[in-house]
């Protein structure tokens, strides 16, 4: 064990140096790092230079964290509304079949009654086509169908969303929502937000530096669903009674049929009305939208079109001429700020369902920097105490253990840098803790060696036996701690996860440094000093 070939020494040192150098970027800010990389001469292979750094958690950086949940009820509601529109379209295309009493909405679906058996037979297969097979990465092709279509007595046809269908749509809604959120936040100009899916129906939004998430919440609270529908002539038939933005409390009858949708917008910009100088939003449709819009305006010249935003009638201009160019304006007593905001929301897209905030954490910058300060100080004091203690107890060997300790902390930081892991306040506590427990491996070895010497072995064989016998114990004890740390990692989130990461990496690096580095140092020392007795 005391024979450490030159190659082994060089390799060990090289690996350690590389590991430590990986930690360097974490001590510099992002700007400094970027500046350094830019200043490198062009022939220098930039892949050699470590670039990844540890990310500071929100509890150290300051900022806001929102956990949003997709409102399942709202999602189901919008899915049934869309389903009803689809059914209506199918009936129209099948030759104008009209169900008795219209299409009713039932829990998680729609229901219609077609007394005529021939009409029913014609329509049913087309309705069945509405259901789609669910396929995703998890279930492949065998995920079932999105809709359940059943025939009930007396010519009633019931179409409902399946459980699998709802889950699938929720999953898609979350993915889509993440995209929309990202665009909304980016347009707002905040720095580097992190948006991740959490679980089946939740989204975690972390925005460093944001102190007042209220505005963000308001922004994310709006679905921003824009629909172009026709104002109904009378409040009966296939109409919705919607609130009007202009006249508070009044309800306006609006036809249910959607002529053109905000989903087909390619652009929306704030502008000012030429004549009145009022703030407004001017928009542009894509081809499909332009066609629908053109057709709708051609068929309804002289009538009023209702522009509906989030189920509220924002304005209802009269159609004077058909608009086939695919662009138009939305006016509606907007302030400049409102026009701006609406443009952003329309450009980013509509959220597929309402999002509710289920958890909110805001950390001020003062607390963040205080925590970092305190954390650094505590780490240094802890390190100094442990180093002094080891030195006082083991002398020269204590010195080796201390070097191993410093390398150990450095390697943890290096690994965290490469993984771009998040450092939180409990994570700093984890580093302090690992400083205290990392010496355990070395202590196990040293105490064993002492014991072997007392039992009469020579120095060399005592060192050998000490390392060998302690090794099994080191593995055992660290494994038990690793189990607890792994469970914590999968279980926790945010700060707790940060602690678990530090802990796991700490265990890993402790075992490595105790087994390789400490052995190497002792072997070198022995071969140089050739002592007759143990120095401790």
């Amino acid at each position: 064990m005391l024979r450490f070939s030159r190659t082994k020494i060089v390799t060990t040192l090289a690996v350690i140096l590389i590991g430590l150098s990986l930690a360097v970027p974490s001590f510099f800010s992002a700007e400094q790092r970027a500046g350094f990389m830019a200043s490198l001469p062009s022939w220098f292979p930039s892949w050699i230079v470590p670039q990844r750094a540890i990310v500071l958690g929100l509890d150290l950086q300051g900022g806001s964290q929102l956990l949003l949940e997709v409102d399942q009820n709202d999602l189901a509601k919008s899915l049934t509304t869309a389903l009803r529109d689809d059914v209506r379209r199918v009936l129209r295309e099948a030759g104008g079949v009209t169900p008795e009493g219209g299409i009713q909405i039932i829990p998680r679906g729609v229901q219609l009654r077609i007394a005529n058996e021939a009409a029913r037979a014609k329509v049913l297969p087309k309705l069945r086509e509405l259901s789609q097979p669910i396929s995703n990465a998890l279930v492949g092709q065998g995920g079932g169908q999105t809709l359940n279509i059943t025939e009930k007595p007396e010519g009633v046809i019931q179409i409902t969303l399946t459980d699998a269908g709802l889950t699938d749509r929720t999953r898609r809604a979350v993915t889509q929502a993440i995209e929309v959120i990202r665009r909304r936040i980016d347009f707002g100009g905040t720095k580097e937000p992190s948006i991740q899916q959490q679980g089946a129906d939740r989204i975690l939004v972390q925005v460093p530096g944001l102190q007042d998430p209220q505005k963000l919440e308001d922004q994310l609270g709006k679905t921003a669903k824009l629909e172009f529908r026709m104002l109904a002539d009378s409040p009966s038939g296939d109409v919705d009674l919607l609130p009007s933005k202009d006249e508070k409390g009044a309800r306006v009858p609006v036809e249910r049929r959607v002529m053109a949708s905000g989903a087909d917008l390619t652009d929306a910009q704030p502008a000012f009305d030429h004549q009145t100088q009022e703030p407004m939003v001017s928009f542009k449709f894509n081809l499909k939208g332009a066609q629908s819009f053109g057709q709708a305006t051609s068929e309804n010249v002289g009538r009023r079109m209702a522009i509906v935003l989030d189920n509220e009638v924002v304005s209802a201009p009269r159609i004077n001429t058909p608009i086939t160019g695919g662009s138009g304006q939305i006016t509606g007593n907007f302030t400049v700020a409102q026009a701006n905001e609406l443009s952003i929301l329309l450009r980013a897209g509509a959220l597929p369902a309402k999002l509710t905030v289920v958890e909110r954490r805001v950390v001020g910058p003062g607390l963040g920097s205080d925590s970092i300060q305190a954390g650094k100080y505590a780490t240094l004091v802890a390190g100094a105490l442990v180093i002094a203690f080891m030195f006082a107890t083991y002398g020269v060997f204590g010195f080796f253990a201390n070097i191993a300790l410093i390398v150990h902390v450095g390697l943890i930081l290096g690994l965290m840098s490469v993984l771009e892991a998040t450092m939180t306040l409990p994570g700093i506590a984890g580093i302090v803790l690992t400083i205290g427990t990392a010496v355990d491996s070395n202590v196990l070895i040293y105490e064993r060696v002492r014991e072997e010497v007392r039992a009469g072995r020579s120095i060399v064989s005592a060192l050998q036996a000490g390392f060998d016998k302690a090794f099994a114990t080191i593995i055992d004890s660290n494994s038990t701690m690793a189990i607890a740390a792994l469970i914590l990692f999968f279980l926790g989130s945010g700060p707790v996860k940060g602690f678990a990461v530090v802990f796991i990496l700490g265990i890993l690096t402790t075992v490595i440094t105790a087994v390789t580095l400490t052995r190497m140092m002792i072997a070198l020392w022995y071969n140089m000093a050739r002592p007759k007795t143990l120095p401790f």
Partner: protein
Amino acid sequence: MRLLRLWPDESHVDFMRFRRFTFPLSAFLSVATVVLFLTVGLNFGIDFKGGTLVELQAKSKTADVGAVRHTANGFGFGETEVQELGGEGTVLVRFPLQPGEQGQTAVMQKAHAAFDADYVFRRTETVGPRVSGELVQSGTIGVVLSVLAVLFYLWFRFERELALGAIVGTLHDIVLTLGVFVISRIEFNMTSIAAILTIVGYSLNETVVVFDRTRELMRRYKTIPTVELLNLSINSTMSRTVMTATSAFLSLLALVLFGGEAIKGFAIVMLAGVVICTYSAIFVSTPVLIYLGLMLSGVKAQGRPAGGRVPQAAE
């Protein structure tokens, strides 16, 4: 130079003898903790109870806790908990859970309206009803899972009696750690679960070191009486135990004293945990092996009369 020796090299302390005192003591403390847990209860933070938490720092550096409490209670959201945190006029205000996911927003708005003038909002946290319920679940599952996982691992690595002894010690440590929370009224939230899991790990660390030695000695000395075996295991590992415990204690002490208010609760619990784990590895897990009838090569070991009473093996 003369080196520091916290524990003599050749020690022959009869640790097992102390079990007359330590067993009743541990039993009493455990029962007392359970009673206190059921009556006084833990000081649950909003992670588990739900609600809103606001950390305010007075711009004038001195906070009028009474006035804050009066104002906060006046919001009409129920009884609030207000406590001073450290020096420098920092106050922690906790509002109970409001119904519905949106209920917590109203709390935040009122709090800002009332306190923005005189206080800086160092941090705010709101947890809705659904999330808090889930955190309680995952916290409990985590602790239970870790105990089971460890039991499994020990069953593989060690003889049955050793595994059981280790688990008894670990459960004892978890209970006593909860006792620390109950008595100190330190806020119990997700980081506290992290502390408990870490203590589970550390407790096993200590126990495994002793039991590794026990197993080695069992193989070497086939007919040693149990009490002597266990005493020898502990005495021979004691110098290492003292060293590691002192080292962990020193670093955690630094964290308590210098780590700042935010992590203080966690650090204090960890500090207590190190003491509890070391104590239990020596005075609980190991003596329990005597009562479990530790087997040595198929022969049930008898205790020495002086070492204390040992249930005679029914052979």
